[in-house]
């Protein structure tokens, strides 16, 4: 009996000790992350049969159990993935937000305001170099800020990639750690013992891994955990596969596991958050700034390219954008404008070129129809070169350059030709017979024109070689063909083309000058009448004034309604027709008109006519190009001619170098007059104009970008708060089950201390019984 009793006592002593050890272990690990409270499982030992009585044989320790809730633990691991993705994203977003410098007004928005403000101030005195310089300074500040934004966003993307690579190393370290733990747990648990602390460590390692990368995991029968990333095995029971990162483009990182060819996708965990940020969010923001810069370049250049600098028109211009030789034949000229590799699109439209003679101040306005899908670079250059005193070419870098002859300058402004009737086809001093219709003329090869000159009658016969398209002749072709007749010049006559119409004139001026058309088969197609026209001593001087306020480019043709004298003949009117032949205005120049006074035509323009004789019979006319936009084709913007900004995006936008060197080169005048600020006013109006590429004004677009970033940051912060709360909740749930409560442990400690004392007392009692028995012997 004593042996049984001592045995029971000993087991009780040992059990209490084991229980106290477990309590000690719990208390010691109360603050160990991931630690699960352990409990000694006790049961009563098998009973012994002692003389028919079954007597219990004491306590038995079964195992040390971990208290944990596997569901909560698993959710907690995964929740950490989501939270850390958001946390890393928020950190990076905060950096982007800080870059903007808003809303304090130190950001791009304030600089844009400053540029417009300095331009508005300049509008009061466009010649002032100090004010001009303040505009160029503001523009440079703006471009610098753009560069800085672009560079810093690029840097941020770079940093993000670096962080991802660091996290990838972290993943590999943790994967190895997990493999080690897997091995140990399997080895220990093969003996039938639960590897409690190792399992806690493994769970903690899993949680830490999940913080870095999105994982799924499963425990196998052998107690090892398998960790998958995007369906691929990262951690197995005995070995891990290495995660590798490779940068394929700035900000774009491809992840692979174990040298697999297929890259993996992760969206959670620090790596998931950073990858989305670097590969998609930053490029998105950069794109928006590039879009802003690009539209700024486009819109500023559209308005600036048709302006005229302080010192007047250009004697030469070189484009800042390069053409590309698409077919690699070493020749830029054969490329279609549409596909010449220019950074901005060319539309179908018109380019007006004004050439001014410095000596006489006379301006010759020519227009070029630009169709990017049929016109080649060479066609355009030829058209420009065909204008008197201009030549255009491409340099070896693919930049278009235009030169004016000495004594001439050119521009692309909407300036008004104040003296439109240079040829004198409208009551000029020369005898003159004009066509009554504009081009194209249905003149065919073989058609004739019979004229009477100083040396007698002669006939001009048109040849097929005179025309590019027989039956659809241009005024220039006809004039050239007529002038090439050997009798024309000696006969004291000349043909001129003016505004798409053709006129035959005497070389002399004055009342004695005369031209005569005798007849010919081409008369009908030319819209000319046979007859004699006389010159005049008093030539009608036409002067246009005002500035055109119409929306569209147009060509106005002025024709008298009858033969008569300005200011004298009753009923004499001048009809003004637009390009489509629709009347714009009818000007009354009969007896109620005092010659030389201005008559309002409309659209901001007025005309004055000095005294003289006009003839409807002779087809008297003149044309005026009324220009709303000197370049409706954007060809100047595309070629970078007379641009304001150069470059194409936020990283490359610059104020044109020679403007920042000399603010006088700012092209702000729309008429060439030094104090004119027409082009500048258009630039200023850009501040509130809706830019088609941005669905709003420049500043509104910028405001939207900043607003979006703000929203992104605050919504990410809100999501993070929610995630933090969830993590907190789960942690609290886990704590409730697996956490160590010291008081609870102390209570247990007191309990087992007492049970230890009781067991000791029991042994002493058994011992006493034995002694008593021994004493009897």
């Amino acid at each position, binding site marked *: 009996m004593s042996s049984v009793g001592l045995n029971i006592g000993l087991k009780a002593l040992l059990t209490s000790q084991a229980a106290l050890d477990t309590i000690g272990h719990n208390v010691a690990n*109360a603050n160990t992350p991931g630690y699960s409270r352990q409990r000694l499982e006790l049961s009563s030992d098998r009973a012994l049969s002692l003389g028919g009585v079954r007597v219990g044989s004491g306590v038995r320790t079964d195992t040390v159990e971990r208290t944990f809730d596997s569901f909560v633990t698993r959710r907690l691991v995964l929740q950490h993935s989501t939270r850390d993705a958001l946390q890393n994203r928020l950190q990076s977003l905060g950096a982007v*937000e*800080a870059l903007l410098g*808003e*809303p304090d007004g130190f950001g791009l928005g304030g600089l*844009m*305001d*400053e540029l417009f*403000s300095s331009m*508005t*101030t300049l*509008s*009061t*005195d466009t010649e*002032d170099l100090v004010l001009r310089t303040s505009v160029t300074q503001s523009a440079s500040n703006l471009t610098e800020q753009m560069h800085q934004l672009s560079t810093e966003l690029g840097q941020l993307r770079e940093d993000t990639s670096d962080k991802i690579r660091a996290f990838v190393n972290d993943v590999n370290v943790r994967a190895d750690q997990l493999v080690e733990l897997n091995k140990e747990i399997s080895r220990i648990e093969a003996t039938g013992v639960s590897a409690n602390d190792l399992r806690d460590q493994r769970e903690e390692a899993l949680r830490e891994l999940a913080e870095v990368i999105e994982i799924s995991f499963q425990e196998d029968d052998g107690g090892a955990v398998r960790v998958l990333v995007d369906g691929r095995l990262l951690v197995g029971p005995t070995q891990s596969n290495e995660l590798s990162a490779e940068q394929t483009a700035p900000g774009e990182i491809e992840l692979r596991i174990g040298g697999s060819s297929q890259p993996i996708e992760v969206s959670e965990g620090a790596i998931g958050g950073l990858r989305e940020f670097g590969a998609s969010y930053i490029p998105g923001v950069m794109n928006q700034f590039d879009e802003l810069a690009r539209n700024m370049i486009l819109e500023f250049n559209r308005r600036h390219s048709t302006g005229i600098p302080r010192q007047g028109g250009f004697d030469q211009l070189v484009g800042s954008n390069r053409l590309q030789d698409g077919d690699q034949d070493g020749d830029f000229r054969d490329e279609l404008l549409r596909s010449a590799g220019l950074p901005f699109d060319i539309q179908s439209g018109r380019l007006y070129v004004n050439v001014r003679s410095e000596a006489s101040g006379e301006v010759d306005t020519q227009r070029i129809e630009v169709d990017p899908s049929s016109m080649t670079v060479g066609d355009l250059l030829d058209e420009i070169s065909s204008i008197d005193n201009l030549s255009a070419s491409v340099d070896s870098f693919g930049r278009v350059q235009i030169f004016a002859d000495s004594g001439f300058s050119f521009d692309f402004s909407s300036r008004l030709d104040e003296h439109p009737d240079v040829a004198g086809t409208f009551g000029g001093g020369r005898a003159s017979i004009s066509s009554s219709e504009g081009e194209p003329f249905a003149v065919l090869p073989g058609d004739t024109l019979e004229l009477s000159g100083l040396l007698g009658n002669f006939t001009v016969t048109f040849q097929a070689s005179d025309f590019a398209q027989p039956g659809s002749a241009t005024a220039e072709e006809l004039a050239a063909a007529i002038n090439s007749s050997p009798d024309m010049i000696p006969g004291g006559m000349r043909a001129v083309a003016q505004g798409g119409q053709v006129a035959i004139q005497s070389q002399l001026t004055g009342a004695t000058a005369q031209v005569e058309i005798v007849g010919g088969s081409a008369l009908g197609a030319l819209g000319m009448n046979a007859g004699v026209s006389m010159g005049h001593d*008093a*030539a009608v001087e036409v002067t246009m*004034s005002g500035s055109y306020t119409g929306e569209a480019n147009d060509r106005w043709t002025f024709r008298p309604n009858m033969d008569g*004298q*300005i*200011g004298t003949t009753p009923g004499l009117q001048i009809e003004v027709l637009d390009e489509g032949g629709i009347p714009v205005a009818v000007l009354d120049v009969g007896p109620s008109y*005092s*010659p*030389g*006074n201005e008559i309002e035509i409309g659209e901001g323009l007025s005309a004055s006519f*000095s*005294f003289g004789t006009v003839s409807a019979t002779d087809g008297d006319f003149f044309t005026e190009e009324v220009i709303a936009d000197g370049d409706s084709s954007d060809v100047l913007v595309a070629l970078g001619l007379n641009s304001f900004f150069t470059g194409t995006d936020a990283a490359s936008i610059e104020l044109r170098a020679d403007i920042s060197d000399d603010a006088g080169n700012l092209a702000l*005048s729309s*008429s060439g*007059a*030094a*104090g*004119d*600020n027409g082009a500048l*006013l258009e630039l*200023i109006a850009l*501040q*509130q104009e809706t830019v088609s590429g941005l669905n709003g004004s420049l*500043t*509104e677009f910028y405001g*939207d970008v*900043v*607003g979006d*970033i*703000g*929203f992104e940051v*605050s*919504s990410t*912060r809100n999501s993070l708060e929610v995630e933090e709360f969830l993590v907190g909740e789960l*942690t*609290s749930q886990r*704590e*409730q*089950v697996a*956490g*160590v*409560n*010291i*008081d609870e442990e*102390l209570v247990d400690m007191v309990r087992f201390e007492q049970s230890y004392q009781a067991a000791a007392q029991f042994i002493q009692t058994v011992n006493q019984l034995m002694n008593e028995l021994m004493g009897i012997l």
Partner: protein
Amino acid sequence: MALRPTQAFTFFQVSSGIQYNLEIMARAQQQVATGKRILRPSDDAVGSSISLSLRRQAGKIDSYLESIGAARPTLATAASELQQASTLLTEARATIIQGMNGTNSPDDRAALADQLDLMRDTLLGIANSRSGERYLFSGTETGSAAYVERDIGGMTRAVYDGNEQRQRVVAGLDVEVEINVVGAEVFEGDGYASTLYGSLTGIQAGTTADSGTGYYDLFLRHTATVGALGEGIQLAGGGASDTILGDHALVVDAAAGTIRLGTGPEVSIPGPTEPGSDNLVLKDADGSEVHLDVSGWTGNGLSTVLTGEGEISFDGSSYQAIDFTETDLELVHPDTGAVIHVDTTSVSREGRELVTFSGATNLFDSLAGIAQDLRNPDGLEFSRAIERIQDRLQEFDDATANLLSGLGQLGSRVSRLDNAETRLSDVDLHLQGLISEEEDADITEVILEMTRAEQTLNVAQATGARLIQNTLLNYIR
């Protein structure tokens, strides 16, 4: 499941509670320190979007205000220049009136003419005045003087060399204010109305319209006198000194011994030996003269017609013969292209006729012309000269009225700018208020919040301290 708090959880709760409240306090402190509610766009994404757009609006208003500020000196300078000009013109007018007084001696008039020339030069200086580097009155051609002097037909004239464009500045959304007046509008008449002739020679306007600006001299000169004379009366010197043009009756009254040209005064015929009988000057009522040698007069009566043949020229260099039946002769000035049509049927004498393109003359040429008339180099009868001056004075007054209206325009633009400025300043103030409402911290509210957080923090700290102190250990020996 029953709540089973653990030590780790309790500590976490306590520390995160304290953290949370400290965060609120730190944020409140930042708001108080900067005075701003929104420090980053994400602090209030909606609010910062609104405040950004408000700031852009305020930026626009600022630039309008700046441009108004910069435009005002230009307008003020132009107005003060025109003010001076108007004073000068009042003075000039008084001088002209003084000059028209018939009691002045030629020397007096020459002195007044000199004064007028001086005033004209001063006025030209005003028209070409500058604000900074810019000419004020030459339209947008601000780099060159408004008026330049040109020599036209032997006369120095001021010609407008600017353009008629207005310089505009932006003074608000879709509000543009012109900041210049154009010289051609303030120093000149309203525009050509009709051609006036000085009624010296009897030339009249033709039927066809004319065109030109300013003043011209039309030259008519006598070349020969023809007509049937007799009774011993001959042309003196072959008629070389005569000034008649066209037909003039010559009547000798034998009984009274007088001779008369046209409607001129009767003149006694001197005896053959009396001095001057070989060069008797007869004047018609229009002042035209014939010089006759009457020393051989027979004493008989005579009634005949003398015809002065002559030439006409617009530029003073190329002359053409006058056809006295021409009612619409076209004359073109080769230098300026000015065209006149004249009726020569009533021309009766030679002379320099003043041609005025009324309404199209400028103040400088008016003053120069009046000074010229006062000096009277052609030796016109002074009453004629005064008629000319009166014509010119009318032109002068018309142009003066335009200058005053230009001054008025400048004044009204200054007041437009003032109005715009006041309105913009109001809007600016309003915007600043809105921005402040959006961005600025409400200090009272922030402090309240801070106090609340502070109290919560204190409570959290107190309860936390109590909580973490309580452990069984305190009671187990």
